[in-house]
């Protein structure tokens, strides 16, 4: 009996220390969405249960190793008992209740984070290897940054053009896969002004690690200001080209600093001699670059895979992009 009381006290102490130790360590990133509050609420109870159950097993284990160890010169066997059916039934039934309680809390938390605000703004999200694109149908704006208004629910309608991707913002605590051939939904109510990042969480090929884009939560006023800058056409073709390049995900495969990704770098490309897969060479002039954007497989550069999809852009836009590429010496 003395052993049981000692172990009982030690279990409670160990459980409390484990729980406070874990929570003091700061387990989660900041809470930046209304949904994250509900998720962290549930997770906190789970950490509590984990701490208790961990202590409940580990403390008697180590206690036994010390108290019931075979001492020097000792012979003989342990105490003979084969089992105890009421005890076995007890530790089958008790966890069943805990499990059902957590499943209930899980369902509650799930319904909480999926709560629909009828006034939620829709934003179209497109994932492709290896870039994010965000379209605001209400404003006619397309961007490679996701700007959100604090405390207003948005409903992201997400599509993928190629393989699976996953929209994950750790500070929002949620992720949702993008699946080719269907539209998936991600509802979130940002609650903290700040700058975060969406990071692709479903492996999508070579540059998966770099498939990230800024997520900026702002006040309504700052959001309107941002929309205005997006709508104003850039007077400078180079600046406009730079924006188009970012928004169309070109930089997922092409670099501007000379390093090598899936596609050839643009640094020093304009006007250079390009060696093609069929052994011929071509000068990278306006006509070649335009063809490589609208019909990429027509002339494939040697040692690069013919994987680039054709881009349907306006002539002026292509001219701006070429103007931008020409500045990359």
């Amino acid at each position, binding site marked *: 009996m003395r052993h049981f009381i000692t172990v009982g006290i030690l279990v409670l102490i160990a459980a409390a220390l484990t729980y406070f130790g874990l929570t003091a360590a700061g387990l989660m990133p900041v809470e930046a969405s209304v949904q994250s509050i509900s998720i962290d609420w549930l997770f906190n109870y789970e950490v509590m249960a984990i701490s208790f159950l961990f202590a409940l097993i*580990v403390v008697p284990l180590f206690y036994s*190793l010390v108290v019931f160890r075979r001492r020097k010169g000792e012979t003989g066997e342990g*105490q003979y008992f084969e089992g*105890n059916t009421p005890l076995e039934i007890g530790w089958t039934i008790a966890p069943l209740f805990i499990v059902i309680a957590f499943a209930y809390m899980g369902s509650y938390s*799930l319904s909480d984070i999926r709560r629909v605000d009828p006034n939620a703004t829709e934003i179209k999200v497109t994932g492709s290897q290896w870039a994010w694109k965000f379209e605001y149908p209400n404003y006619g704006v397309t961007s490679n940054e996701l700007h959100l208004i604090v405390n207003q629910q948005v409903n992201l309608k997400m599509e993928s053009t190629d393989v699976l991707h*996953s929209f994950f913002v*750790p500070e929002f605590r949620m*992720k949702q896969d993008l699946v080719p051939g269907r539209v998936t939904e991600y509802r979130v109510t940002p609650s903290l002004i700040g700058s975060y990042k969406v990071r692709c969480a479903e492996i*999508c090929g070579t540059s998966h690690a770099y498939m990230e884009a800024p997520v900026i939560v702002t006040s309504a006023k700052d959001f309107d200001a941002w929309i205005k800058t997006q709508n104003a056409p850039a007077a400078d073709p180079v600046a406009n080209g730079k924006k188009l390049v970012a928004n169309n995900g070109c930089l997922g495969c092409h670099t501007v600093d000379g390093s*090598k990704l899936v596609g050839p770098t643009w640094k020093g490309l304009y006007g250079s001699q390009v060696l093609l897969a069929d052994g011929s060479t071509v000068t990278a002039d306006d006509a070649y670059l335009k063809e490589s954007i609208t019909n990429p497989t027509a002339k494939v550069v040697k040692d690069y895979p013919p994987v680039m999809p054709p881009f349907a852009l306006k002539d002026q836009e292509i001219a701006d992009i070429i103007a931008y590429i020409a500045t990359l010496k």
Partner: protein
Amino acid sequence: MKRFFSSALARGLFWQFVGTLVGAGLITGIRALMGLSVTDKFFFTEPAWVLGGFFGVLFFMVGTGVTDDWIKWARGIDTPDHHEDRFEGWEKYVNVSLDHKVIGAQYAITSLALICIGGLFALIFRVELAQSQLQFLTTDLNLFGQNGPQLYNTLMSLHGMIMIVSILLGIAGMINYIVPLLLGAQDMSFPRLNAFSYWIAVPAAVLLLMSLVLGGFDTGWTGYPPLSARAPVGMQMFFLGVFTAGWSSILGALNTIVTVVRMRAKGMTAFKMPIFVWSAVATSIIALTATQLIGLSFQLVMFQRLFGMGFFDPAKGGNPILFQHLFWFYSHPAVYVFILPGLGIISELLPVFVRKPLFGYRWIAMSSMAIALVGFLVWAHHMFTSGMNEYLRVPFMYSTLLVAIPTGVKFFSWIATIWGGKITTPTPMLFVLAGIVVFLMGGLSGPPNATVSVDLHLHDTYFIVGHFHDTIFGGFVFPFFAALYYWFPKATGRRMNETLGKIHFWLMTPSFLVLTLGMMRIGLLGMRRRIVDYDPAMGFDSTHMVLTIAGFLIALSVLIFLYNFFNSIKNGEKAEGNLWNSRSPEWQVPSPMPAHNYEIPFEVVGEPYDYGLADAPYTKFMKPETGKHN
């Protein structure tokens, strides 16, 4: 050396090479006649490589001679029931043997070899991960047609699948060696099928490694389409390798079940079987009935690539999420295939070292069956973020959490077994105890992934990576080492060095705990799985450096183990008696075990784990006149 080149292993590998060329040549010839392209980036075209890989496996199996008896039977030629081993020493293990103990050892050694390869891959990418930015797997690298990040993806994916195959071989090794001895059987029920199950795993491993040099693949071990439908030709070798390894698993499981049903000693009723046999049966039931689904799902992607059948291609009316359902219908129960034998080892060894009966034997036995059953009902918890129907997520949350109940029964029963014992802690017991603690950490980090809303954060992060490394090390790696230290004297008549064993243990265990706790920590903070590089702004650099150091310490401890293992075969301290003072039948006869096991059969007259009860033997060896074979 000459004797190695004439061994079945060398012959098989030679014929696999020939078969690959024949298969690839056949397709290339047909393509040439049809006017299609005959060469590609990796010399042969993709269809040629696939048929080559397939032919390679067939040629390997015939080349080793493992199918000789079946071919003779088909031609009407009789063969003896038993083949006496023609080889001695190491040669026995590189040639075809029908003795379950030799096959068990072959499985275990192949498993260790694959653990070394998979571990080496892990060390390579752990070095890359030690710091943010790319250090040596850079975009300028070009190895096997892959740049650095692509090579990272290949190594990371292969680490997963090579380790899974090594686990399957490891559990098959334990089951093959131990189960017939525990049952009092002369061998497995189908010795030739048993040899076939082992040998087919070898060309499977070769195919998996071939994927590394054929452009690799970047999907992770899960091989989700559409990415897997676009990956280089290495993807096909991976699919074919897994498909082939599946045969080993299915046939081995079939053999185990029949052996347990048909070949138990006299008096060994179901609840008098040693507890490990229960877990072997539970694991075999899963492997026998679920493995087909991973083979099928991979085969469908193979056909999508080869024949343009759009099973998972939305443009052709296919559905990428269907693949995930098929895949996880095996791959979740598979996790229980990996851990149940290890949990059986824990239950089997605890009573020996605490000198007390196993607490709640029937409950532990039934909990294995319950885990196997519930394991079939939980697969979609891997898909909470996949875009499947939202409402499916709730029933799968309930069923997944139910797994905690039979698992809890095991933990509580183990603690009650230890309570009030007379505990000693030689090396096997240390690994058993660490197995319990590590598996507990794996078990407790599971339920947060089961509750949907929390999983939306945890899914595809390092939290999951830490969680399953805990379950696999606790449920397989630690018990596997315990079993190797424990039964080594039975196989060799010598024991492994105890000091080196303890160094192995005290080096590996703390390093491993640091590794997985660190993984879970950064995972909660947002570190994604399967990335070659991470944002330095997240501040994970120092943690990753610690994880890399911990990984290298684990590798060092395994090297110490390997030295101890191979050195002790010849130079270990003699241990021919009942070294651990066990009640189990195999320890009642001298080590090493003779070729056809028990020269005098035994019958079961008591309970298996009545330690501490006087005059209550488990087995009684029959008088010779009652018959040599039972």
